[in-house]
């Protein structure tokens, strides 16, 4: 079973529907026991980093997620959910993340070469593969996925498995052991997106390390 973490951030309708569409059993929950029983966990999120991080902490889910990740349970962060996996973010100040992946989150505007590149980075952009990873096993280098974001992950070279070109190379997907992240929205990326979710559902559960 896939458990989508419900911490009051964003709309989970499409995400839930996309897992249902690939035949996965899916539940939306904030209950630590349900998260513990799930085979894998999805951390969604839209909105501002600081606000979302506070909400996770307020319901104690930050500790729960860290424990489950440390025990080897596959965890996939999507969009802001991926950004939360990093150590910190510089979105309106400085905010602490879960620290499950080394690196931090900074404004895209910092690296854009000209005003021709609009913020947010919104639309379909091809993935550039950087490392072989099970998460990408059902798709091809160059497949397009749908992005909507104004911040991106930096200083995380070791975990970057795919990027997208937008004036600069933006971190698009990351993996570190059993912890995965997509900056784009697989649930809005058509067949390619569903194939990524399918790969996540088919991952073997790691043993504790």
């Amino acid at each position, binding site marked *: 079973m896939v458990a989508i973490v419900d911490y009051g951030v964003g709309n989970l309708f499409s995400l839930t529907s*996309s897992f249902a569409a690939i035949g996965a059993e899916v539940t939306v929950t904030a209950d630590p026991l349900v998260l513990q029983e799930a085979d894998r966990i999805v951390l969604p999120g839209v*909105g501002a980093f600081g606000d979302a991080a506070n909400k996770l902490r307020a319901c104690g889910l930050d500790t729960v997620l860290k424990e489950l990740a440390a025990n080897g349970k596959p965890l996939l962060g999507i969009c802001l959910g991926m950004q939360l996996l990093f150590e910190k973010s510089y979105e309106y100040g400085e905010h602490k993340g879960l620290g499950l992946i080394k690196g931090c989150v900074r404004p895209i505007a910092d690296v854009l070469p000209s005003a021709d590149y609009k913020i947010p980075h919104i639309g*379909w952009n091809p993935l550039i593969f950087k490392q072989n990873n099970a998460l990408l096993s059902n798709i091809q280098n160059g497949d*397009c996925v749908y992005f909507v974001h104004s911040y991106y992950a930096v200083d995380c070279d070791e975990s970057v498995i795919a990027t997208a070109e937008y004036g600069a190379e933006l971190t698009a997907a990351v993996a570190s052991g059993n912890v995965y992240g997509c900056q784009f929205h697989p649930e809005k*990326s058509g067949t390619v997106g*569903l194939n990524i979710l399918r790969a996540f559902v088919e991952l073997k559960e790691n043993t504790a390390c």
Partner: protein
Amino acid sequence: MITKRIIPCLDVKDGRVVKGVNFEGLHDVSSPVSLAKYYSDNGADELVFYDITASSDGRRLFTDILCETAKSVFIPLTVGGGINSVADFDRVLKCGADKVSVNSGAIRNPALIAEAAKLYGDQCVVLSVDIKRVDGVFRVFAKGGRENTGMEAIEWIKRCVDNGAGEVVVNSIDTDGVKQGFDLPMLKAVCDAVSVPVIASGGAGKIEDFITLFHTLPKVDAGLAASIFHFGEVSIRDLKQHMADSAIPTRL
């Protein structure tokens, strides 16, 4: 490299798509769910559902259909028509819409855009503007293009973007339905004035109109059309292949 988006727009009334012909493999052309799935499977980058229902029963039917569509179509969905309040945003976002387009609702209540952007983020709020030249000046029209508001269009768009509109759909009343191509001078004026994505609407009659649009105005992000797709005059697959062959960044 971000790709240029092709967006079919479906007008929905009392739960049915208003216009269209039968495509091969599509049994019910007036079912929004089947048509949306068909377009998604055939290369549409995004879909706009436009609710032209007046009754509250029809409105309920619309949200039911939206939910059903979002269960089987996994590309971005924008919803417009009858959006007058934050409660309307909430109603359609809960049913799987990703973006909400406001037009007359923002003219009646200019605070709506700022309110919605604060709650749901700029990326969620799309400003849709019907523009017509009156004595050589771009004017904003309301009520489906029937009423001249007297407002100058570029100033209006700038104000809405400052308030948090994350994208602008520019619908030229002057070229709409004429099928002689998009309104390039109008679109250029908007692209020069704002830094958010601009979506061109009104005037597309054939594949070459989209090629001309993206070649002439590389700052335009997307082309939107309705009847030429629904009547099969232009197939999205052919269109996108032509775009790719013409060196326009395209998702195939």
